[in-house]
């Protein structure tokens, strides 16, 4: 059936989403859709609502959907708890994850892996993220900014979500680490099913656009005051923003 086919191709579909935090409306009628295998980028000034959108997609209870819908893999997940969304295939990279005392990085990676006897795989993934020495440390305890990023990506690589939500993955990362982080993200978004040639999708927030050198993104948005005000080719948009600031985007009419 035609509609079923369409549902399968669109991995994430957000329709007229209105979201409030602590009784204050932050997002106003946000709509976007991400086809399976595509990565999209969000730009926008501070306080525009980018993080709010990602947190709402992941389903954290603080972010209340007032109206609108979120469909993932054709399922309405608007009211689904965060853990069910994770198991359905959504993963998020935390900007400031909490320290959980006594819970080791290895425990977290193992929890993400959801597999018995994954020791070898854990060691391999940790090696790739340059995190081998961190496996027996308490998660996030005393981690530097860049180490947190690698740890988050290590966990996501074990979780292997179909939709990866990344909030400023390159911020605060040094030049050497950015290529490591870029390649980790690239492999997260890469092909997971060699037979069906299907790839994962991503939604990435970036201010600098550095990450665009490592990922292949086809669609970009600008969020401003809780609305998506502009949509276009990410590198073009980035150049415009760099030259003329966000002012130019305010003029751009989406739809």
């Amino acid at each position, binding site marked *: 059936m035609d509609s079923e086919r369409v549902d399968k191709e669109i991995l994430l579909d957000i329709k007229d989403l209105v979201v409030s935090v602590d009784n204050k409306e932050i997002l106003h009628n946000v709509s976007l859709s991400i086809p399976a295998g595509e990565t999209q980028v969000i730009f926008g000034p501070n306080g525009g609502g980018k993080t709010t959108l990602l947190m709402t997609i992941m389903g954290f209870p603080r972010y209340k959907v007032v109206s609108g819908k979120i469909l993932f893999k054709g399922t309405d997940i608007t009211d689904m708890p*965060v*853990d069910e969304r994770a*198991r359905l295939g959504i993963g998020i990279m*935390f900007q400031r994850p*909490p320290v959980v005392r*006594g*819970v080791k990085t290895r425990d*977290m990676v193992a929890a993400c892996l959801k597999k018995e006897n994954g020791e070898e795989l854990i060691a391999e993934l940790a090696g790739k993220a340059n995190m081998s020495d961190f496996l027996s440390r308490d998660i996030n305890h005393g981690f530097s900014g860049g180490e947190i990023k690698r740890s988050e990506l290590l966990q996501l690589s074990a979780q292997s979500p179909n939709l990866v939500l990344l909030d400023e993955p390159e911020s605060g990362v040094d030049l050497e680490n950015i290529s490591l982080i870029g390649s980790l993200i690239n492999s997260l978004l890469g092909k997971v099913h060699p037979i069906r040639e299907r790839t994962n999708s991503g939604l990435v927030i970036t201010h600098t656009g550095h990450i665009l050198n490592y990922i292949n993104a086809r669609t970009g948005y600008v969020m401003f005051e809780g609305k998506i005000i502009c949509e276009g080719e990410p590198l073009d948009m980035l150049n415009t923003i760099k030259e003329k600031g966000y002012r130019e985007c305010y003029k751009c009419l989406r739809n």
Partner: protein
Amino acid sequence: MPEKLNNTNLEKAKAAANKNASIGKDIELSKYVIDSAEKPKNIDPSALPAEDKEIMLSTGVMLDDPTQRSGTFIQMGNTPVHYSQKQDGIEVMAVSKAKEKYDWFGDYWWNAVSVDTDKYTAHVELNNADGYFIRALPGAKTVFPVQACLYLNKIGAVQDVHNIIIAEEGSELHIITGCTTSLHNEPGLHLGVSEFYIKKGAKVTFTMIHNWTPAMGVRPRTGIIIEDNGLLLNNYVIMKPVESLQQNPTANCIGENATARFNSILIAPPGSNMDIGSRVLLNGKGARTEMISRTITTGGNIIARGYIEGNAPDVKGHLECRGLILGDAGSIHAIPELKGNLAGIDLSHEAAVGKIAEEEVEYLMARGLTRDEATSTIVRGFLNVDIEGLPPLLNAELKKAIADSEEDMF
């Protein structure tokens, strides 16, 4: 033991027979019967009833396969029913036996704990309590831990115990003690005096698992004397309900660089009332202590105390007390105390009591764990204290005991 000393102790005990303890709910001693029934001695521990052995095993006391132990002591009620030692240089016997055997015994009797501390210590003396005597000869090192079990198995009875532990110079002694009962919901009372003497350069690890039942009263009284470069590593675990338990063992670091470490894991289910602390007196130059406690209430009440007193130059002490309140009822009262009596000492503490941080739960849930899985992972982490210096075997057994009890918690 000299007659005279004996008489003095007796006099002091009589005088203190009605002396209330400084802290803890008062327990009326006359409500309990004295278990004076003759019990067989020198039994074969593996021949004990399976139920008893299973209860003892839950406190780390292995009777069917004691190959991993350097010695075994079992006291039922007021009678040591078995003691044996398997390693040269390690002595395990009843204190009544040691009293006959050694003319110096009196030096170690009511020396680390005062007989007139309160009516509970007095009761132990007045009832001529027996208990274990565990001693490592100079330089001797236990390959495997010595195990001791104090077992209360008569309804409505009081168990009086008086233990002596001596680690002679340069020795190393590992002990696992299980205190438990066959009672279910019937009342019982455990009074246990333990005196530790850790000589120069000696090391003692003492791992005690308490496994009581909902109508038990428990009043241990412990004193530890640590000489130059001596080390005590004390691990205490209680995860099952107990009606009323109060203890506040005191380590007196009299020697230079004497070190005392206390790790406590306390879990109070509904109906439990625990007042548990540790006290360390840093009286020797450069003496050190570290106290770590992790407390969880799932409905019971916990008072978690810690007291460090610095009386000598260059001493250092740290106290860390963290409590988790799971569920709607129950309380945790952390009382960390530091007292410094001269300059140049370094004492610190940190204490935190609260519920599980929702932020942590959500972090784990975002990785696909259910709320329950996330909660139990965080709790397991909370209890996952890395105990420095504990031999791997003991560490594994301790972790296992904690893991077993965790299953009952949720």
